[in-house]
């Protein structure tokens, strides 16, 4: 069964390519995770947190008005955007924070791209009374300023990373450096299914709840399994979370949509599985964007959460064995899908998740009106308002606003002149 893969390797992908200083911590984490996995008390504690804090199970929503633009296929959203903190990230964070507490760690280290994982980690740290430091590329702190404020309000220290491309990749480097130095009291709370073993398998397992719930919900709604399950893929955590329950359902096609930025044939994209080749990045062997000499190539995407030149090893494996398909979606396609869902269904998705929606539009046209497509709506778009406003020119420019103000005050002055006695 494909579902039974436990690492450290998925085919030729995965492993542990890290400094020796971290091996003991990874062993400790692996042991703690395996113990917790078989401990009904741990499962109960996590389930209770999800029920009373996260808001699980998350609902599913069928979106017929949106689906009219997707060849008339039935499209059903798994609403991870409705979770506390606004994305699927909380599933993994609560699981790892419980583990960290079991290990006696008092400090959480996290990397973040869009800020969703950082917000979720800062939230868990506040809930459990732990201290929290979040590394975030300087570029991302600018395009996701609202999430930086959220993290700081929650009590986390946000450190802008100025090395390298100043995005998620460099935030992970900095997080790993911090962990190497502070491994005694700190847990590195990796936010995606990448990194050294046991992170890929552990993070996947904490997100399995997405697919487990959705599988049952879709069957209940439609009477059958969906024809396809789709998700966006950066590191790949929400995709692994929803794919996992369907891995051994041979009739269910799995589609991961990568960020193609300005186009996967340009130099500005983050389409790791489409354009990359196997290498070692951030502790695991997997597909990655790199030049001929093995130097990592900087990725580009309008979506900070998908702007990553690596991908989780299980995805690389699923690609190579042909179980899942991975296709590129451009910035423009994603933004169009974001606007379409907003206008047809009244749901504003995260730009990350909009890549999955854009994929569903293409796929629906291929599969036709009798098909059922389950889409993981991994996050909500509140954090992306600034990017979207700029992209769609939704906020009046300073000049326009000043002109409008002037017009209003001129009118007021004229009114006052015409009716001088009114005030008295």
């Amino acid at each position: 069964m494909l579902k039974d893969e436990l690492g450290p390797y998925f085919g030729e992908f995965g492993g542990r390519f890290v400094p020796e200083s971290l091996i003991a911590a990874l062993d400790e984490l692996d042991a703690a995770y395996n113990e917790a996995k078989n401990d009904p008390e741990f499962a109960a504690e996590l389930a209770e947190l999800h029920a009373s804090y996260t808001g699980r199970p998350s609902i599913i929503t069928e979106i017929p008005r949106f689906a009219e633009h997707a060849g008339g296929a039935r499209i059903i959203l798994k609403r991870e955007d409705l979770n506390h903190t606004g994305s699927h990230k909380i599933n993994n964070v609560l699981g790892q924070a419980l583990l960290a507490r079991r290990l006696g760690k008092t400090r959480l280290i996290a990397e973040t791209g869009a800020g969703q994982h950082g917000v979720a980690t800062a939230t868990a740290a506040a809930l459990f009374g732990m201290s929290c430091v979040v590394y975030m590329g300087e570029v991302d702190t600018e395009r996701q300023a609202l999430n930086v404020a959220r993290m700081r309000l929650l009590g986390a220290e946000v450190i802008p990373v100025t090395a390298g491309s100043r995005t998620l990749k460099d935030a992970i480097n900095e997080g790993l450096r911090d962990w190497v130095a502070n491994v005694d009291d700190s847990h590195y709370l990796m936010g995606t299914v990448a990194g050294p073993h046991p992170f890929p398998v552990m993070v996947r397992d904490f997100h399995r709840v997405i697919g487990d719930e959705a599988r049952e919900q879709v069957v209940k709604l439609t009477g059958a399994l969906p024809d396809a399950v789709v998700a966006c893929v950066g590191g790949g955590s929400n995709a692994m979370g929803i794919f996992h329950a369907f891995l051994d359902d041979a009739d269910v096609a799995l589609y991961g949509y990568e960020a193609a930025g300005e186009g996967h044939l340009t130099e500005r994209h983050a389409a790791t599985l489409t354009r990359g080749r196997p290498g070692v990045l951030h502790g695991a062997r997997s597909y990655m964007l790199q030049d001929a000499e093995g130097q990592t190539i900087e990725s580009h995407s309008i979506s900070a959460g998908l702007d990553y030149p690596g991908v989780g090893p299980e995805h690389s494996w699923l690609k190579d064995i042909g179980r899942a398909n991975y296709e590129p979606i451009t910035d423009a396609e994603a933004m169009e899908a974001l606007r379409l869902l907003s206008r047809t269904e009244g749901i504003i998705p995260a730009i990350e998740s909009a890549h999955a929606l854009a994929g569903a539009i293409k796929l629906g046209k291929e599969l036709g009106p009798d098909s059922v497509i389950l889409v993981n709506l991994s996050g909500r778009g509140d954090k992306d308002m600034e990017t979207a406003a700029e992209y769609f020119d939704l906020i009046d420019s300073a000049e326009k606003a000043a002109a409008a103000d002037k017009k209003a005050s001129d009118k007021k002055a004229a009114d006052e002149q015409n009716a001088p006695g009114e005030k008295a």
Partner: protein
Amino acid sequence: MSAVEEAIAQANRDRAGALIGYLPVGFPTVAESIEAAVALAENGVDVIELGLPYSDPVMDGPAIQKATQLALSNGFRLQDGFDAVAEITSRVSTPVVLMSYWNPIMQYGVDRFADELKAAGGAGIITPDLVSDEATEWIAASERTGLDRIFLAAPSSSDERLVRAVEASTGFVYAVSTMGITGARSDVDIAAKTLVARLREAGSTSACVGLGISTAEQVREVLTYADGAIVGSVFVSALSSGGVDAVAKTAASLSTGTLA
């Protein structure tokens, strides 16, 4: 006994122990990095450790990151690394090992990389993000070429892992002095002494301590229990602020710490 192991043993016979000096290739230029490495050898350094710049150096602190990032933006290529090794070894007899993260070696092809390095006169490779568990291909290539494979040992390593690091390594075992990354520190961790004692228990006869060493006094202290002291960031800082002359002076000063 390999050239590296012999150089360390010789330093321990003649003096308190060996001084191993690190500099990255291509900083500030390839030519100057070669001159600086030669200056290390001419001023009391027993083994040269040449770092290959890499885009994601998770074991390196700010000083070395800054230098290697500059080398990359100046267009560093792996061929520059082999050329540097060839030129340095043609000018001085000090053995030269490379320090490289794993992905560039893997992409070049492990066997091809080993062959090129051997042909250039290189003596071995330090692999900061490759533990022996994942190193089957590299171990085979080093057996075939006679290049030294230098693995890391950390204070957090279990006894079992220390035995593995000692058994897998040739030339020396790189004992990480503290739980951290590269960069000068005012005190070298007491953990280093304990770690070296544990490495001796595990059978090591060639254990060198690195990370955080920046003064002759620290070199002297480390050599009371270890076979060698590895110094990096302080040479990079010297090169950055005062050029090759400053590297020569710093090496001369630090090497006084190797005198018994």
